[in-house]
């Protein structure tokens, strides 16, 4: 598999490591009273969908620029449809939420 890192260009799979679903968002942390939001946390930490087709997921370019990436990968074909720096994805999402 080949992944095109926005910083480093097209590189081999062995430079990257996989984390998982990039569509999850960490539940609000402040202030997490005991038991509050337990369901949201359990879902965030443990529950994963197993989608067939394009999937947005987090990868780490550990043997390159150390960027976390949001990679859109077709889980049926391993085709890489898009790669973005994770930090830009979060910032864009927050800007959208503010607007």
């Amino acid at each position: 598999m080949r992944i095109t890192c926005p910083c480093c260009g097209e590189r081999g799979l062995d430079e990257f490591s996989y984390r998982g679903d990039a569509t999850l968002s960490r539940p609000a942390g402040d202030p997490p009273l005991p038991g509050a939001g337990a369901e949201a946390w359990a879902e965030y930490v443990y529950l994963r969908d197993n989608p067939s087709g394009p999937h947005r997921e987090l990868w780490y370019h550990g043997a390159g620029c150390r960027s976390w990436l949001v990679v859109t990968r077709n889980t049926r074909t391993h085709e890489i449809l898009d790669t973005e720096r994770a930090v830009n994805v979060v910032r864009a999402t927050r800007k959208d939420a503010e607007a």
Partner: protein
Amino acid sequence: MSPFDAAPTQSPTPGPTPSGSRPRQPTQPFRLAEGGLIDRDTLVRFHFDGRDFTGHPGDTLASALLANGVRLVGRSFKYHRPRGILSAGPEEPNALVELRTGPRREPNTRATTIELFDGLEASSQNRFPSLRHDLLSINGLLSPILTAGFYYKTFMWPAAFWEKLYEPIIRRAAGLGRAADEADPDHYEKATAFCDVLVVGAGPAGLAAALTAGRAGARVILCEDDAQPGGRLLAEQLSLDGRPARDWVRDALAELGAMPEVRVMSRTTVFGTYDGGTYGALEHVTDHLAATAPHLPRQVLWRIVARRCVLAAGAIERPVVFPGNDRPGIMLAGAVRTYINRFGVAPGRKAVVFANNDDAMRTVADLAKAGIAVAAVVDSRAAPSATSRDAARDAGARLIAGGQVTRAIGGRALTAVRIRDAAGREDIVPCDLLAMSGGWNPNVHLTTHHGGRPEYIASLCAFVPSVLPPGMGVAGMAAGVAGTAAALADGSRAGAEAATACGFATSPLSMPSVPAEPSGIEPLWHTLSAFGGAAGKAFVDFQNDVTAKDIGLARQEGFRAVEHLKRYTTLGMATDQGKTANVNALAIMAELTGRTIPETGTTLIRPPVQPIAIGALAGPHRGGHFKPARLTPTHDWATELGATFTAAGLWQRAQWFARPGDAGWQETVNREVTAVRTAVGICDVTTLGKIDIQGPDAAAFLERVYANAWKKLPVGRARYGLMLREDGFVFDDGTTARLGDTQYVMTTTTANAGPVMQHLEFCHQWLWPDYDVRMISVTDQWAQIAVAGPKSRDVLRQIVDTAYDLSNDAFPYMAAAEITICGGQKARLFRLSFSGELAYEIAVPARFGDALVRRLMQSGAPFGITPYGTEALGVLRIEKGHPAGPELNGQTTAHDLGMGRLLSTRKDFVGRAMAQRPALTDPARPTLVGLRPVAPHDVLPAGAHLLPKGSPATAASDQGWVSSAAWSPSVGSWIGLGLLSNGPARHGEIVCAHDPLGGRVVEVEIVPPVFVDPTGERLHA
């Protein structure tokens, strides 16, 4: 003139034959007088099953054996049937031999692909005691129980018999060759190549594709499995533009060789299609040489990254299924032509040709031209084509139209075939060679590795690629395009398409003129009237000994789906992956179940296309090169002192420093521990992960990644930090020091240096991207040495520059500072203690680590300074009750480790929410305790289970375990740390440590985990 009248061009192996010994072999009696791409002027000697033979450079082992009249070359897998040579290529299922001897012995190599070299040694396999007289062929008589599914049915009961009786017998009787007993002495490499266009196969289509793409300027890699590129152009009597086809090949190769961006790789098998245009290939660099050349690998495993690929892998001819179709002397029709035309070998003296197609009729002509008698041409088509009629007439052979070979006759060699004509009359025709063809199967393997299933084309009687992997095109016979002219044109088209897709301007190849090559075909899979097998075994899969009857049995028992058929009968599961078997099996199953072939389906073929030695996959990564070794800055110094080293991940760390006179390692470790407790010791702790964190928001960031509080840590102080995973369990721990307003240096455990770095980047880039903070690993940049013991301050005073006050008031426990030592050398000093003694860690740029340790030893000598290793480090931390790897095992919580109070309630941090789950703070969870055997000298085994005294040794009474244990010279007893249910509430209780592996039960007292200086006075001294 018959070719057999020809005298050999060279004299045979010289030397008289000793009387009474084996007769002298006539030299290459089946070598034709002329023709073939062999060097007749050079003689190559080889050895097969203890007999000496000769051949020529350019021969394969198979062609040389045939030239010498050797046709029996092996015994079959299950029934020990005599087997010969079926093919002339890598698809060979029968002629499998053990190549070479000793540590280089390689089983199951195909005689058809082994290039002959001088001194080659090979032996037949799967026979006992000899190939001609194989006692185990009695398996053939046992065949009623060795049929399909026998593994599942016959040997299921009683289970105890399997290991002692059935398995050894089956393994002895059924099997393939023997692997070498010794380590492989050769070396293997791995390499990566990049190109625009990868062309797989250098037959007419592949050469045309490479020429077209190469001329356009594309970076081309052309891989050819064979030693000699050319494919069928080397094996056929064929002229291109009126010249022999091999001349066209030579010119094409010369042109490709002159192109700077084109690389032709012969002896290179592309074995797998992977994601993103990545292909696996194996290059046989020195397999064809008598001895591996110095400085050359035996094989190279290539990863080829190609923007486009043209698959021009050709096709494999199909056998026909009939009783006795495995007898030595029965050969694929195309292979017969290869032996005649490429190798100058007569595969027999009297031949019958049996086929359902026009292509095989070339064999009739080639046999006749080579002077081999053609007794009959059996064309299964009711209305034979003009091609058949002409071929038979020209060869002076009898044409049996609408006929079939219904049985092969002979034992260790074919002696005759039984033929049934269109009217049903049967006749027996003596012959020693049967050239058969059921048509050609395109080599679709590389197109199926992404899950694409090939499509059946009735007019071709074959499967062709349908859905292709991204970036791949198929050309020539691999795509079902038959004939040289069509293959050249198709190859050029595919090469142009590939190069165009890479942005190159292409122009079509000018096509040589090629005589017409008829390729008409009508389906024929078998000549059986029933599948009961009364007429004898009709083989579908030669290598795995699967017969037509087995397929009938599979149908009967309900294994009709192709994948079930495969697993039930083992069809296609041998090392040849059923290359000559699968389509026939499918056609027979289709017939048996009344379905069409497309309805019956196909199995998926997985990489590798050809067997690959484990050595090639391992490459150079074996023994000491299996993984990289990381050495600490004091490694040379420790080596000089005779330290014993231990692996900590990739690191090599000094385990202890034995001195002459030490009775054993335990005495050494005791001495090292005592030195730290009473004087001073030094230990390299460079391997701990070090991360430099800087930025205005560094403190805020630490608040998020650590469970405890950081905001109030002043400059010049360090603090213990506990890091959780988001699921609330402990991830890592370490100390982080604040060196400046916006600069921190974090330490991690040795094992988690990489994972913590990755985690911090995740937190920063994904969870909290607004923090203005940056971080970098500095583990390799700083050498760090622990100086521990009551005299550590005295030693440091000798090297720290006088401007720096080391008194307890000025530099108390947990102080941190950037200082200078030895007259101006920059260093960092931390007052940290893992041992519980007055202790420091001093860091210098890594290049000064060696100098620092030597200076410390020198300055510390008057104070009794003693180097200590990881073993003493472990004892010291157990004595002090510090959790380490065995306690931070990914399943423990802060509460379990007695650190629940560290969890801040005033901030958000990774793991906070989940750590609050009631189950994670349940006091009944196994929680950290100290353990002390009731008898101090009772060995306390780490890993032992903790059970209440007197309770049965069952999982139900298991309450925890011993996580770490050591002999403590400071306490004068074995001590340990453990995790025990309700642990802290049970101090004083006696429990049992059960070690079922060691067969020991030790009574231990539950105590607080800190054995030495529980009030911490020494730390603050």
